């Protein structure tokens, strides 16, 4: 085969800069082959190399007594006691999902599942965090239906429950949606598998689907560049998934891991065969040689370049113990899956591949990993930020009808019930779902013990756009708060950092601020970052998305029976607000939805106060003092009260409350002050809870009591909860259909 000549222009076409190309030539001491150029371009892409983010990510706290594995592996691992570990990660699949929403989202789910089960964990819960453009945007309904369909189509079929998540709409995502997928699995602590290639002579085995031509350059040209009007042409770079193959691949791999046959195993994700083999060799401080002629293919005529870069789904790479090849093949044969030896581990520290007897790739592994470019890109505060942070409340007229304001807030796509979304997901399979979607946190039980795990995914990107430091800190705090009010002790998080083009100083500034905000909150709340990913270049025609550092937090509850849900339950229960309300309307949903202003600074966050609130919630939940507890978030006190009245899966209940304070009424009702929760408590338990609140020096106020059929806030509104629920429940579907 005639080799394709490589020059600077071709390198540019691969997304490499002139400097980077010269660095390749220097490293190799010669011009790269066409295949080598492809390998460098994907391994040095932003998506695989983290070249703009690496040095900042080191600022995040990543250790702790329960942390068994921090960032750097396929997923993070937390010791949850009883010999068990929680293995989890969140990852983006933004660019493919915008181009081809169904398959983009579906393969996002498939990819994150593989990152988890490759470590020996059976996946038991998935969540997702989705961001779409304005609901009125002509493309939004199509994207929402495609993405939700893809998540359900893949997740339901593969047999892992989708137990929660979040969905937000903002015009800032009109040209770039976000699809962040999270999976958690459970593994025995003594049988955790890592993605390493060690032991010279050990066979490298390819399992799963055959390699096709799909997804070539997904990592480099799709995920590491901005979009423009030609982005539709990138559709062939989107992979197509097969959940049935994934389903049996999970069973086969977990069954393989019961035996002592392998050294390491890794999913072939972004940059496929290349990145999986290079990363495994790097971790094992070894070399690897692959014979590309042996790679199973879907069709004839696939070139070695395509074999190296294909992102065909449902493929795994295994380094087995020498002599165990046949035993490995037998395991996969049980499930009618192919397992083929395609190479071996070497001592030379090189990534080498052969094709028809000829060596076409010969690159030092370190050149593709630790020695890959890393940049400290310039960062500068956006010039218009100070102006955007101003909000003149005196110029803002007070509403005349507070009931109407509440109703319109509850029917905005951001605050409306997400039932239309989650009823398309199987949230029950696996038989562990204690709290199904619709409460502050998803709760799953562990069959092996009395324990439970809580998971919450959060980020308010409007806050982050207006103050990335505070916004990111609030994302961490809110995620932890959602767990704490549910009775779950926060332990660790996985982050999905979605930003625009890092080559722009303003975007880089947002990124660094967000990292520092996350770090402060993680340190204060004693939560470690154990895994995650960075997604840059979420831009179209030069317009970046709002910074969106999504946080997926996992916590433990020692007795799952002590879980708390957000909805009011018993007439006669007292309603208590924990925390304090300040006059904070900046960056609120109220300002955006009612006054069409996305401005002001997000609410203040006092991390010490936050920590005390969460500790009180945990202790009260453990003592069984809460009938319900609900984080006060977007839409403020009025929305939180309404949600507690109408979000019970099967019924509604009313309340009679009185709000005091000399704040503007709209700030009192709809302001989003942090570190607050609305709890309900049986009158008999109130003294005990009150004592706990006093001991903790946590401000609180008794608002009223549960009962009746109306949501009654004295002096402001009286609304029938059944009608409110009906509007809240159907709003999203209606707007998607009629948009």
């Amino acid at each position, binding site marked *: 085969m005639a080799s394709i000549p490589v020059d600077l222009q071709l390198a540019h076409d691969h997304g490499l800069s002139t400097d980077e190309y010269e660095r390749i030539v220097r490293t190799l001491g010669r011009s790269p082959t066409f295949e080598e150029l492809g390998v460098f371009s994907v391994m040095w892409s932003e998506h695989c190399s983290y070249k703009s983010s690496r040095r900042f990510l080191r600022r995040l706290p990543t250790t702790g007594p329960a942390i068994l594995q921090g960032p750097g592996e396929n997923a993070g691992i937390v010791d949850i006691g009883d010999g068990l570990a929680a293995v989890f990660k969140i990852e983006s699949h933004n660019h493919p999902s915008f181009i081809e929403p169904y398959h983009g989202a579906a393969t996002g789910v498939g990819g994150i599942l593989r990152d988890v089960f490759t470590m020996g964990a059976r996946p038991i819960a998935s969540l997702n965090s989705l961001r779409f453009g304005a609901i009125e945007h002509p493309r939004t309904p199509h994207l929402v239906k495609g993405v939700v369909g893809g998540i*359900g189509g893949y997740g*339901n079929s593969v*047999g892992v429950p989708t137990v929660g998540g979040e969905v937000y709409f903002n015009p800032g995502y009109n040209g770039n949606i976000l699809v962040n997928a999270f999976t958690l699995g459970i593994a025995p602590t003594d049988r955790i598998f890592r993605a390493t290639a060690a032991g010279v002579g050990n066979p490298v085995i390819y399992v799963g689907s055959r390699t096709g031509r799909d997804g070539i350059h997904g990592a480099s040209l799709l995920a590491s560049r901005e979009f423009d009007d030609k982005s539709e042409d990138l559709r062939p770079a989107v992979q197509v998934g097969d959940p049935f193959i994934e*389903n049996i691949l999970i069973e086969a791999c977990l069954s393989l891991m019961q035996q002592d046959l392998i050294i390491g195993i890794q999913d072939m994700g972004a940059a496929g065969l290349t990145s999986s083999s290079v990363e495994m060799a790097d971790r094992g401080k070894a070399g690897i040689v692959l014979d590309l002629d042996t790679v199973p293919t879907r069709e004839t005529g696939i070139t070695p370049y395509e074999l190296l870069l294909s992102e065909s789904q449902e493929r795994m790479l295994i380094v087995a113990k020498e002599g165990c090849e046949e035993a490995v093949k037998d395991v996969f044969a049980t499930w009618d899956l192919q397992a083929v030896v395609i190479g071996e581990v070497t001592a030379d520290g090189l990534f080498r591949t052969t094709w028809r007897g000829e060596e076409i790739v010969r690159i030092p592994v370190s050149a593709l990993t630790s020695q890959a470019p890393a940049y400290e890109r310039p960062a500068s505060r956006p010039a218009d930020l100070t102006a955007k942070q101003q909000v003149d409340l005196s110029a803002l007229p007070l509403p005349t009808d507070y009931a109407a304001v509440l109703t319109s807030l509850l029917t905005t796509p951001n605050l409306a019930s997400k039932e239309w979304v989650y009823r398309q997901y199987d949230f*029950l399979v696996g038989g562990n779902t204690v709290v199904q979607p619709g409460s502050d946190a998803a709760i799953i039980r562990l069959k092996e013990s009395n324990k439970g795990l809580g998971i919450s995914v959060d980020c308010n990107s409007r806050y982050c756009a207006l103050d990335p430091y505070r916004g990111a800190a609030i994302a961490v705090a809110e995620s932890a708060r959602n767990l704490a009010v549910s009775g779950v002790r926060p332990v660790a998080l996985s982050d999905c950092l979605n930003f625009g083009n890092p080559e722009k100083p303003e975007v880089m500034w947002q990124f660094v601020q967000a990292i520092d905000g996350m770090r402060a909150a993680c340190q204060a709340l004693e939560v470690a970052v154990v895994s995650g990913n960075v997604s840059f270049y979420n831009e179209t025609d030069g317009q970046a998305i709002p910074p969106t550092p999504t946080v997926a937090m996992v916590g433990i509850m020692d007795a799952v029976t002590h879980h708390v849900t957000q909805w009011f339950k018993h007439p006669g229960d007292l309603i208590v607000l924990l925390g304090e309300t300040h006059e904070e309307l900046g960056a609120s949903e109220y300002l955006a939805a009612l006054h069409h202003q996305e401005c002001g600074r997000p609410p203040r966050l006092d991390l010490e106060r936050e920590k005390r609130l969460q500790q009180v919630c945990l202790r009260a939940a453990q003592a069984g003092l809460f009938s319900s507890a609900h984080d006060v978030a977007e839409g403020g006190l009025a929305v939180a009260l309404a949600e507690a009245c109408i979000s019970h899966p099967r019924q509604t209940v009313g309340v009679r409350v009185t709000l005091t304070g000399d704040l503007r009424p709209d700030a009192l009702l709809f302001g989003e002050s942090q570190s607050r929760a609305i709890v309900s408590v049986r009158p008999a338990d109130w003294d005990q809870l009150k004592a706990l609140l006093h001991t903790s020096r946590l401000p609180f106020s008794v608002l009223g009591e549960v009962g009746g059929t109306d949501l009654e806030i004295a002096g402001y509104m009286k609304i029938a909860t059944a009608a409110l629920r009906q509007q809240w429940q159907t709003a999203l579907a209606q707007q998607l259909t009629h948009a």
Partner: protein
Amino acid sequence: MKWGVVTFPGSNDDRDSVYCLERVLGQEAISLWHKDRDLHGVEAIVLPGGFSYGDYLRCGAVARFSPVMSSVMAFARAGGPVLGMCNGFQILCESGLLPGALVRNRSLSFICEWVAVRVETTRTRFTARCAAGECLSLPIKHGEGCYVADEATLKALQDNEQIVFRYVNQAGEALESANPNGAVQNIAGVTNTSGNVVGLMPHPEHAVEALLGGEDGRKLFRSAFG
């Protein structure tokens, strides 16, 4: 009682069914592999939910030809109790053990939610310990659960008391508004003429623990061994 739960490639609720039978209901339960014709002496068989063989071609259409199914069919024809849930129901219809068919939900979307179903007959191996007209709270989770049958079949089902469950509202009425998937006459489950084979779209195996939302599903399994 010794139960067998069939695992096809792509089955998802097979482990949940074994857990329900063994750990919750104290039964003996084993997995039956789709390639194995040997039923290993089981006294009752569960065809679980999921996406057997990816549900490619048509739900249950490939599973129906798997080696284990020839034994299951013989077992059923000899009067052995067989319960098909969700994909298991689809497989029973495809294999001719139950009349009718299951097609895409009227909404064209997958639906996961808790529903109420009314027990229409207690003359089956899986409803004997229910009360006629009793309402059970069970979850559904399917994309193709809309039961259809031709007029003659429907009449025969009616005449022979073969309709086992109907979707109902909280008041126990089989109204169109309580029909989640468009099933004809709100039918959620049917039986064969002898009452030993029952198929239903809801998942009784996911309704056996109060912690997870309810225990009504236990009655179906208890009917078989009680």
